[in-house]
């Protein structure tokens, strides 16, 4: 068996090796996808081997090398990173199955490049999850942006190029113009960028400076899609759906909110921020994003666009919950990272399955589609319940904790936002379910009979939908990890 240190390194090395092997098998698609699956399984095994270690309270880590004097590329697995790595690696397997079905059915070009970039993106994600300081995190964060760019522009069309420009333009500008100066500044005043329980900025800055620095960090982490830097996410929807599913519902966006939570908890520290009152504005901005994005989602007719804005809104739940600086809401934030990942990937899987089977992309075209694709739309319905926050889907639990945290701190703005947005969520998800199951399909003069999407895709989306329900009944592991985070 691997030691914890080896497992950490393997977390990055395994997908990298996969990325190197995949091109060698480019002429044999079955072997190529086989390599992807084996790589994904090996990665999950490595990550799982770390879980008992972290649950037992240990924080394994290692220093790879010093990039600059005093600035190390170093890794340490703490509960939040553990959870993030677990989600990303676990869902990569499911997503790979789904990709095989999707990419083949839709006869996509450049599939080898697709799988290579996917593996590279996962390697970067693992680097982010395991980073033990902000410097390391920043480096992998940039790698993730670059490795996903070819996936966003996969189709190579004019539209893909424009989407790619917005994607790269926004993500690179925010990280370069806002996050990098913040990073250098943190290093300059704190002499370290290590993620430390309680933060590293205590007594170093005044309240205003703290608030400004927090703004640089939170807006600089563009992947968290806080308004007004959210536009890249809908733009990224030009990518093939498996990319939207794993990267723009799980890996990339969760890397964003994960980084935000890490920065708030381990760089600034709850107490430092609370004493200075430097995070109040963030609750308001995140709250605004939640509501505004939901309103946009309500109006969007394109299904992927609606899901994208729903993601923008859901990401800000995590940011708002963290910015409340209450232990209970932090648990909610951590849980929500997991819960939303499983739910949103299901929704994207379903959207891609609908497209593959029927080539429908708009909400208004979905009348009666549930009768033809019961599994797909059933999974969609379960995941939608999770988004709204209704039992028996896992979204209920995370929302419960967030709401409790908001009430405990008597943050009525946050309470209102959560309540109103729940209504909005219901407003843009329930009509889809209603259309799919209860509206009669339109008379189809040309007669394009279709059933479910290819089996691999249905298996994938059923698995993740089951995951949403299972997480409701057995939230122990994420819950325990979240608890360890607030009381280390």
């Amino acid at each position, binding site marked *: 068996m691997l030691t914890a240190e080896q497992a950490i390194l393997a977390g990055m090395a395994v997908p990298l090796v996969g990325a190197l092997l995949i091109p060698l098998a480019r002429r044999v698609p079955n072997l190529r996808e086989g390599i992807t699956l084996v790589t994904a399984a090996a990665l999950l095994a490595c990550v799982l081997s770390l879980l008992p270690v972290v649950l037992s309270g240990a924080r394994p880590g290692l220093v790879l*090398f*010093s*990039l*600059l*004097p005093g600035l190390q590329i170093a890794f340490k697995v703490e509960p939040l990173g553990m959870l993030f790595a677990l989600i990303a690696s676990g869902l990569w397997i499911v997503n790979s199955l789904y990709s095989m079905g999707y990419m083949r059915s839709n006869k996509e070009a450049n599939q080898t490049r697709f799988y290579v970039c996917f593996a590279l993106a996962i390697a970067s994600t693992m680097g982010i999850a395991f980073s033990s300081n902000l410097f390391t995190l*920043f*480096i992998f964060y*940039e*790698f993730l942006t*670059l490795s996903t760019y*070819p996936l966003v*522009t996969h189709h*190579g069309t004019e539209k*893909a*190029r424009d989407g*790619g*420009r917005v994607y*790269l333009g926004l993500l*690179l*500008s925010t990280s*370069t*113009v806002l996050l*990098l*100066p913040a990073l*250098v*500044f943190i*290093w*300059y005043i704190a002499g370290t960028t290590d993620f430390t329980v309680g933060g590293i900025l205590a007594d170093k800055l005044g309240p205003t400076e703290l608030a400004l620095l927090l703004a640089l960090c939170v807006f600089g982490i563009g992947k968290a899609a806080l308004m007004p830097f959210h536009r890249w996410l809908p733009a990224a929807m030009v990518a093939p759906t498996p990319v939207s599913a794993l990267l723009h519902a799980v890996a990339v966006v969760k890397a964003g909110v994960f980084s935000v939570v890490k920065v708030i908890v381990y760089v600034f520290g709850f107490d430092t921020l609370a004493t200075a009152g430097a995070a109040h504005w963030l609750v308001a901005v995140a709250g605004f994003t939640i509501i505004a994005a939901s309103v946009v989602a309500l109006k969007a007719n394109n299904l992927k666009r609606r899901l994208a804005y729903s993601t923008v809104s859901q990401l800000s739940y995590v940011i708002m919950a963290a910015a409340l600086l209450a232990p209970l809401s932090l648990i909610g934030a951590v849980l929500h990272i997991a819960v939303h990942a499983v739910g949103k990937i299901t929704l994207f899987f379903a959207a891609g399955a609908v497209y593959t089977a029927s080539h429908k992309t708009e909400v208004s075209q979905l009348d009666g589609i549930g009768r033809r694709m019961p599994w797909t739309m059933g999974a969609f319905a379960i995941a939608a319940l999770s988004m709204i926050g209704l039992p028996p889907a896992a979204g209920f639990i995370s929302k419960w904790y967030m709401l409790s945290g908001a009430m405990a701190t008597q943050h009525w703005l946050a309470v209102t936002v959560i309540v109103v947005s729940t209504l909005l969520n219901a407003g843009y998800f329930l009509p889809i379910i209603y259309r799919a199951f209860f509206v009669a399909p339109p008379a189809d003069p040309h007669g394009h009979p279709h059933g479910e999407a290819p089996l691999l895709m249905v298996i994938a989306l059923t698995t993740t939908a089951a995951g949403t329900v299972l997480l409701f009944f057995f939230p122990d592991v994420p819950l325990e990890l979240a608890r360890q985070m607030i009381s280390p």
Partner: protein
Amino acid sequence: MNLLSHLPALQVVIPLIAAPLTVLLRRRSVAFAVALIASWAALAIAVLLWLQVAESGTLSYAIGSWPAPWGIEYRVDRLNSFILILVSGIAALVLPYSRASIEAEVPPQQHYLFYTMFVLCLTGLLGIAITGDAFNIFVFLEVSSLSAYVLIALGRDRRALFAAYQYLLMGSIGATFLVIGIGLLYLMTGTLNLADMGLRIATVQGTRPVLAALAFITVGVSLKLALFPLHQWLPNAYTFAPSAVSAFLAATATKVAVYVLLRFYFSVFGESAVFAKLPMEQMMLLLALAGMFAASTIAIFQTDLKRLFAYSSVAQIGYIILGMSFDSVSGLTASIVHLFNHGVTKGAIYMLLGCVALGMGGTTLARVQGLGKRMPLTSFGIVIGGLSLIGVPGTAGFVSKWYLLLAALEKGQWWLVFMIVLSSLLAAVYVWRFVEAAYLQEPRKDTAEVAATPWLMSIPTAILVIAIVYFGLDTSFTIGTASDAAAALLGGRR
């Protein structure tokens, strides 16, 4: 052992002797062999010198045993041993590359002359870096410049002649200004030895001739290093010169000129109060910023990659000068390390462009459409070089940018921090013009027959591309040397 003590002289003498040898031997393969041996020997000597300096401190070598300050002194410290490694290292890589590269660009009967000029140019650049004598700097500057004019004129395009002529005019003005400045300093201090000058200038500081000397030297050297707006010669020279020459000059010539500026500013004028009389820091800051933004913006609108990256060079020189203007250890470290990192990056990019020119028949953006399919490795190499220009982590450019940002923060200049990162976004824009052409456009029909890159070109190019990533990950050599050199330059005042 005896030979080891003469290393500083051999550093210059070996390529100098190689030059007439190539003329005498004439056969191009023999001339190539001589030039290759000379450049590799130069690299070996540079590495040995660096090691010696790292171990036992500054070396002083009296040419002809005439002791300084009367004789000419070669003086090797942390700073110039670093420059020597850059110059000779690039030469050692470009030379094998040039063998295959000039095949298509220079008539065969002129090949031996190419090697002659190449080693002469190398001699000049190494000489500038190693000498401790002000007039000697001027002499070597002329040696390197004259040979560079010839090298540029060898370009296949007739516009190369015009480019060389333009460079000749601007370069000569620069050299004249430099020699006037040196003359004034000699007049006032009575010495040509740089170290001696630095000591004696204290007694005459603030006098008008010394201020005039500072102005003349600044303008003269700025012409050679292509400080905006004195950069007019550079885009044409880099665009129309043979690929190997573009690569060599882009990586070394302007960098050595920056070294001269560093030497005069910090080793000669540094200890005196000259800077108190002239707002040099503010002026350099302004010119650097103007260069960073104006040249990057111009680069965005270029259609030829060689010209695009030439303007990018002007912008990157802005970063180097910006670092100098901070007048702090971090700032100078950023300057010196960027001088090296950018040399490596631009050298690699121009070598890659040479491969592209050979394979695709040109380097215009229209021609490189679909390069990612036609020449995947070359194309990827240019992307890596481009990422280093932007300053993406994992590349050499990030290291420079980090120190530049740190230097700006140390001064509390938040607006400069944002200027630096904003200008790096401009770099992202022009680099992405290439990326979109190479990867998001279908290849043109007339580029279907891609000539394979000869291994003599691909291997040196690959080494330099790997170096971009290597120096982005392992900074012990670059930052270690640069921060020592920066501390030494500022030594007297801290």
